[in-house]
């Protein structure tokens, strides 16, 4: 996700070597955080962990229940909303000195650039991240790492659209026959859609979105909603939305199908980080370690349909492996710079 420049990469290699040899005191990144009995004890004393996340609610609650089962005595509260909403919420709460959140996961990696710059994240590298995550998926200063990766895809309802007639590309969505049949998410709510809108406007131009807006699109908020609207049969096609929700629905036997557009599929990265002023600092670190453990990552992949950057986690058979998919390049730094303009331009074309 992060693309360090050359000088930075040198530092990073050293840091990774140091981390691997586990003698990290005083090096660029913090020492790997081990789940020690003392940490668990201290977390239990705090008794609670509050997780702001943008992942689809049932997935989030499943992870939370697994955490509570593994560490009885710690109650977990999930605060789920769209990535952009979470960003606004934390900004609003921190401006009033309310520090309610322990661990945060957004669907817009650009948010972590801002939070790191604002100095509200704590350096904490779970052992799994130190040992099993590729360098491009962790912050060199150890403040966050890629908790999950997924795609924003095109999808269709197989009862309403025959496979041979289904769109194969973003360009196909502009066909007049899809007018009034498309549903899509909103970049003002969803970090996924924000990231996807950035990549699509960069690679296909805003003209594409301007034309798409004329297709009488049903405008929903979350990127988790278009797949659900397909399953309801409310719309035949989704122009963007979570691949992972479609995996879940498809594997439950609902009539939905995924299309990886010919132009490339927007790649979304959702990092996770511990807040410096977390109200439950030990529970926060325990949760961050749990989130990156093989157990949580495999759960998120198997039942959630997400993709993991953990080296030991296996992709579920029957799903197209990530390396076989042509993806658009992600660029959180550019998203961070253009976010306000993207929202304004989007509202101009889509009216909401």
């Amino acid at each position, binding site marked *: 996700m992060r693309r360090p420049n050359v000088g930075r990469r040198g530092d990073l290699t050293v840091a990774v070597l140091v981390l691997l040899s586990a003698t990290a005191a005083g090096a660029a990144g913090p020492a790997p955080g081990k789940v020690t009995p003392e940490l668990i004890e201290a977390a239990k004393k705090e008794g609670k962990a509050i997780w702001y996340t943008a992942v689809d609610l049932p997935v989030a609650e499943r992870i939370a229940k697994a955490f509570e089962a593994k560490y009885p005595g710690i109650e977990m509260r999930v*605060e789920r909303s769209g990535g952009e909403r979470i960003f606004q919420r934390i900004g609003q709460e921190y401006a009033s000195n309310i520090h309610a959140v322990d661990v945060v996961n957004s669907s817009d990696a650009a948010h972590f650039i801002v939070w790191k710059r604002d100095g509200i994240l704590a350096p904490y590298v779970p052992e799994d991240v130190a040992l099993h995550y590729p360098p491009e998926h962790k912050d060199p200063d150890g403040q966050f790492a890629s908790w999950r990766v997924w795609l924003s895809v095109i999808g269709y309802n197989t009862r309403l659209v025959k496979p041979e007639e289904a769109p194969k590309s973003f360009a196909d969505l502009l066909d007049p026959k899809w007018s009034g049949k498309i549903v899509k998410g909103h970049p003002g709510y969803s970090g996924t859609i924000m990231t996807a809108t950035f990549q699509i406007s960069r690679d296909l131009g805003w003209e594409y979105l301007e034309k798409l807006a004329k297709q009488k699109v049903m405008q929903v908020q979350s990127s988790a909603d278009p797949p659900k609207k397909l399953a309801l049969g409310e719309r035949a096609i989704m122009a963007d939305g979570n691949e992972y929700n479609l995996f879940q629905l498809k594997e439950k036997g609902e009539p939905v199908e995924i299309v990886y557009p010919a132009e490339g599929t927007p790649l979304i990265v959702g990092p996770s980080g511990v807040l410096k002023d977390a109200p439950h600092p030990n529970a926060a670190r325990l949760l961050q370690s749990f989130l990156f453990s093989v157990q949580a990552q495999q759960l998120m992949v198997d039942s959630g349909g997400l993709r993991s950057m953990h080296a030991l986690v296996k992709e579920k058979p029957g799903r197209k492996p990530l390396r076989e998919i042509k993806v658009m390049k992600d660029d959180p730094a550019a998203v961070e710079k253009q976010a306000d303009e993207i929202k304004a331009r989007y509202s101009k074309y889509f009216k909401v």
Partner: protein
Amino acid sequence: MAPRALPWRARRDLSGAILAVFALALCLLVLLPIGWLVVFAFTGRGGGFTLANFRLLFSDAAFLEPLITTLTLAVSVGLVCCLVAAPLGWLVARTDMPLRRTVRFLIMASFVTPPFLGAIAWELLAAPNSGLLNQLHRASTGAGPDEVLFNVYTLHGLVLVVSCYTFPYVFVLVANALDRIPGELEDASAMLGASAFCTARRVTIPLALPALAAGALIAFLQALTLFGAPGILALPAGFHTMTTKIWSLFQYPPKPELAAAASLPLLVLTVLLLRAQSAILGRRGYTVVGGRSGPPRPVPLGVLRWPALALCLAVLSLPVFLPYLALLNAAFSRIPSQPLTVQTFTLDHLRFVFLELSATRLALKNTFLLGLAAATSGALLALVISYLTARAAIRGHRVLAFLATAPIAIPAIALGVGLFLAYTRGPVVLYGTLWILLLAYVTIELPAAYQQLQAAFRAVSPELEEASRILGASRLRTLRDVTAPLLGPSLIATWCFVFVAVVRELSAAAILFTSETKVLSVLIFDLNESGDLAAIAVLGLTMLILTSAVIAAANRVPGLGGGLRVRHY
């Protein structure tokens, strides 16, 4: 008597002080958020006085279109509500239609339904493709897959849904007014030789007209300031109302100054309308409760009794029967758009909401705690203020009356922002606590509570209080021992009204909540944004069961009772 006179007098002094405290609290409650709104509306991005916000507001199509949409919506809702509520009110209050009490009760059930929940239920019913009614229409007529009977994601759909959950306001006012018209007036008219039609035209309708006009105004204002239903139905259709526009201005990057400016036209419009209303109605006396009038005389409908009932039930199917069926279906069906059958039945959604969803318990607790607290403090505050104004008890009572009515003009979402601005900075920081939500709820519901009690005061003649005062009781003691018991049923009704309104409230809560102070309405709106309709159905039904239980309990308070069916004899 002489030895007792002294302590009485001492208590009277205390009354003055306590009343002053109430007046001051009211000023703080109402003026602080409004003050912040006005300040922000005239503040530029970098600070300093400016009119730029208003210039943008009245020149940019992105603001003008929502303004026109909102006015269209509000006028349509006002008209629809009157057209529906007036005949229904008359049938229930003045005729021998069968099951009158049941119909009244069911209309109250539609009032207990939050508009945002109704809007979601109507998505399930009338989304163009997956809506159950549209599916049924296609299945029964063999129409093609693109054939749509009714599309709820339109301005028409929005008018229908908002009317469904606003017409009870008009209904209650009209039915109560008709209840109160003594039979003697109509008898007198008949004895003087007027026909039934003439009596209706010359006596009944003119006496009910003020209530209808007041109802139309309330419906108009409700539609003007409602956020939830437009947020759910207008955005997917690609249009904004003023409230959703204001709400969108608080998203990142927040533009509170524009939002404040956008809410001022609504404020001004409402103030003008309220003034017009009092100018028209205020001068005439409509006191018809003299104490010993006869009960209203039911008009025999003859063969039309059952068709009349059928009409009522048909109307009630829109806010009550159909939406609840859709919610029940969604709560137990694997996919909400599938009709419930043995194959599609599942308890997964129940399990998810009650065993997995970590916000459920917290939201339920917060909502009901706030409901009880706001209803109690709101009803008491409204009682004292309406006493002060109805009996002109202190100087400046007109100002109090204005302050107590003013919040009706502020869109709750803007009030939420005003409160947010007021209580996120010193000296008192309340953001992040339940207190700020309590303040918001009391402020928002004060006008309705005040008007209900004000009306009740008007119907109670002041002689009894004067007697109590002449005998030496202080104002507060008179209020407690004489007036409050007389107002018992109205007081309980007001309490229930505020409680229900708090459970329904979404707009201010959407701005003021934090993760620890989440309420049910916000949770449901969140779930709608991520498309978790089944979980909403389960939560919504739970909320309705609990709300009904609370109202039923409140109506069993010994010595009071009467509940939402406000009746004054």
